[in-house]
């Protein structure tokens, strides 16, 4: 087997996808050809490293919040009704209970936000256009004039992807344009 042929089969050899006879020929060539052997070793090492490539676990809260956000977005599209969400609450325990109350608040909230957006001013965070979804963890930090949010939440807010729940919020939604957004890296 010549080098060109061996190199053309290298990927399949590496992935164990060659017929045994071809694999044996490639192996014999690699044993006798340092240049091709080096190419193979580099490819093998690269594949091993890619397999080890790390990922992130953003944490349990993230998955819960993201589920809520997706459901909230599909509620806007005529998606899961509150009844549907309640139907699965038996299986999901406290989380879905919280989700149900959140979804209920959201329906009111979205309406209120849309009313708020009809006003001519944009909030300090620079968000304009499209419905604004706000976060429950942020809701706890709310007072009459100031919202404290994390950097991540700020970026999600800017993308219109942040969900803010009911505690203390509903009374302030009408005054959203006056809210000051303060970012903190630690608050979660």
């Amino acid at each position, binding site marked *: 087997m010549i080098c060109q042929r061996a190199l053309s089969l290298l*990927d399949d050899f590496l992935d164990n996808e060659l017929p045994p006879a071809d694999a044996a020929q490639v192996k014999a060539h690699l044993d006798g050809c340092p240049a091709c052997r080096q190419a193979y070793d580099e*490819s093998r090492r690269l594949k091993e490293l890619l397999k080890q490539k790390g990922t992130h676990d953003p*944490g349990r809260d993230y998955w819960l919040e993201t589920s809520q956000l*997706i459901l909230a*977005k*599909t509620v806007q599209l005529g998606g899961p009704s509150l009844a549907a969400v309640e139907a699965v609450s038996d299986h999901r325990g406290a989380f879905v209970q919280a989700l149900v109350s959140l979804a209920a608040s959201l329906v009111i909230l979205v309406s209120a936000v849309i009313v708020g957006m009809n006003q001519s001013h944009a909030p300090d965070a620079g968000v304009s256009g499209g419905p604004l979804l706000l976060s429950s963890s942020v809701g706890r930090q709310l007072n009459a004039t100031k919202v404290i949010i994390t950097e991540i939440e700020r970026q999600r807010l800017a993308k219109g992807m942040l969900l803010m729940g009911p505690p203390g919020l509903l009374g302030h939604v009408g005054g959203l344009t006056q809210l000051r957004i303060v970012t903190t890296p630690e608050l979660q």
Partner: protein
Amino acid sequence: MNKTIPELVERFVKGDNAAFTELVGRFQKKIYTLAYHLLGNHLDADEVVQETFVRVYNKREDLKDVSYFSTFLVRVATNYAIDLLRKQKGHRGIAQDTASLPGEIQLDLSQRVATPSQTFEQKRLMDEINRALEFLPPKQRLTAILHDVEGYSKPEIAEIFNCPQATVRSNLHIARMKLRKILRQRLRLKEQK
């Protein structure tokens, strides 16, 4: 009793939104991980997860003709991720934003039993790999990630991209060749140790 994926999909297509909720719960981590590998930062991965499921919700009628929900889902996610990559081209590359995420956990199996210096070296090497991946065009990058990181087979990737297997083989071959070229010095050093 836990319902199977085909059962859930069938119910979802018929309008059972609780089934959709269940599907989101079962697949969101898979989509996040894939998107994170491809885009390299939490915010974009997060956006892909949300947009993918919203799009699937909108396309639920299409699911009647789909053999494998997982493949369909990954196809929607990768299409959106590729759009994001193309939009970002010229603006920024893979953002290494791990430091900005409080409480975030870096999961890297190779680091479990490593000494601090090995860990540092491994992290540096992984950063180099991420940067090297950044040089690849979206389809090549995605093919390498799906195959070599996520473990998808070539036929599965062909199904996801709706393209011939020969295209997948070609993309994978070129991607590996480019990565080897960029990382050659590092790969050789590693071999010698």
